[in-house]
């Protein structure tokens, strides 16, 4: 049965969900309030999880979404708009993307981002 577990277990390398400081290129040092781990998740899970998290954070807080789903990643700037968030940055790594959203529309922090 071990092989079955291995086959159907979640295979992705998951992210620690703790909040942390992060130096974002072009934006500077920010505090990440939450990490939304969507590794291996099919649509609409990444979108729905993000929506849930955005509902719970305070205005101005920044979250990081980690996903390996290119279709979901591409839709995030649109999603940010409907959730009244600012999509600060999308970082592409070898096998995943990191998307940084700040709750609230446009403000001083975004101004740093050219």
């Amino acid at each position, binding site marked *: 049965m071990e092989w079955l577990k291995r086959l159907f277990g979640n295979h992705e390398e998951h992210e620690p969900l703790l909040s942390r400081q992060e130096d974002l290129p072009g934006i500077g040092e920010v505090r990440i309030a939450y990490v939304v781990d969507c590794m291996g998740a099919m649509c*609409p899970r990444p*979108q729905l999880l993000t929506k*849930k998290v955005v509902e719970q954070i305070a205005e101005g807080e920044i979250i990081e979404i980690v996903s390996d789903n*290119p279709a979901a990643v591409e*839709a995030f700037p649109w999603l940010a708009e409907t959730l009244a968030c600012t*999509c600060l940055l999308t970082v592409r790594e070898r096998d995943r993307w990191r998307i940084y959203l700040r709750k609230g529309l446009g403000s001083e922090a975004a101004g740093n981002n050219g």
Partner: protein
Amino acid sequence: MNANVEALSGVGWMDQFRHRLYSAAILLAVTLGSVWALAIDVRFIYLLVYVWFGVIYGVLLQYGRFCMAAAVRDLFAVKVPRMAVGMMIAVGLYALVAAVVTLTGFSTFHPQPLGWHVLIGGAIFGFGFVFTGGCASGSLYKTGEGNLNSALVVFSIAFSQALVVSASGWFDGLAPAAWAQSAAAKGMPESLSVTRGWFDLFTAGYIWDLKGQTLAELLAVGDSPVTTIFVNTFVNAILPVLGILVALYAFYYRKGFLRKSGKAHLGWSDELAGMWAMCTSSKNTALAGVGLGIFAGLHMWVTGALREHYEIFNFGELLAAMGYTDGLSIQNTVFDPGYWYITTQEAQWGGWVLEKLGVNMMDNVFFGLDNGLPNPLLNAPGFMSIGIILGAAMLALARREFKWKFPTWESAFFAIAGGILMGIGARIAMGCNIGAFFATVTNGDPSGWIFLAGMVGGGYVSVRVFTKWMDWKVAREGGGLL
């Protein structure tokens, strides 16, 4: 505002090169396979047309992330109209190309029978695809991206359809008696047993009594090419597309646009600028739509020309002439739509496997009379689906988006259950989001809009159910959030 950064610390040029090499290897394999097939018999060119158009469809689907499930679901789940907008633009552009193909006389399109089954089938299909995370075409291109969950969906669609069209049992009694009478009166050969099996009763006793018509035929506007094109392309496709785009703008985009513009009131030119901004933000999907329109039109044209060249109506005749008579229907035909189609060939894969396992799959109308059960190696539209997977894999590899993804227990359950529903829905509606919607509305057949209505309704209910499931799961797994 949104900047994109490539943090490729872990990615060397070797990695990039390796991915491109795999991509080229797929192209080489398809080319060599084609040459091999032509060396066996040059008439395999007919089958290879499906293969190569499949590859092109796959590339375009992956490029545009072309997924009808995303279009419906994102609208209701998170109020994002992006994919729906792209899809509508694609429909409009495809319709224009289809009009040209029809004018040249090479169209292979047949309108679908119009009836309540289209709405019901569409709703079941739409209910299923929110759970699977992809529509019929979306699941194929995602399989090409290495997503084994989507492969499971394709598998599930294949077998559920095969079982739906061949099953008989107590539920035969659910079919109205009028269907049985009507089916019996069709004088079909004994071997098809049309009065046994609910799908046979449904097909012979109900579908065959319906008519499939283009809007121009329905309105009996005469057969001048200009009037036909005006009614079939403009009234049946372009006008509804414009209407839906305006509705999407008004309900899902305008508020954000107003907020961004900083104005209290939008004038006409602002509204038009807003519409334009909405349409251009779905650029990739729209561009894929242009490509799909052009190539799907070309596909019809090339297949039509080959049929003329070989003086055949159906690939089955060519297979018989080449000496391959196994799996032909009793009319010597196989499934050969001559245009973009997805689900029927998948049903044939499932049916072929079950037949090999000893189940009689040819005693029904679907396989026995119409579509046959050819060996998958001789299944031309089947190769179109394989071509889609390979084409999507090629582009995904070249863009470094290919990744093997394995299902979890939960996603596997959803893939199988949702796939079964999609299979059932596709058979009842006589097609999927491509065969029953995309190919129909663009060729003047209004039945596709009924299918869309059903699919959107099913999708809406399904999004509600799925969101409840997510809420429950998140609450159960604690932490308040994840």
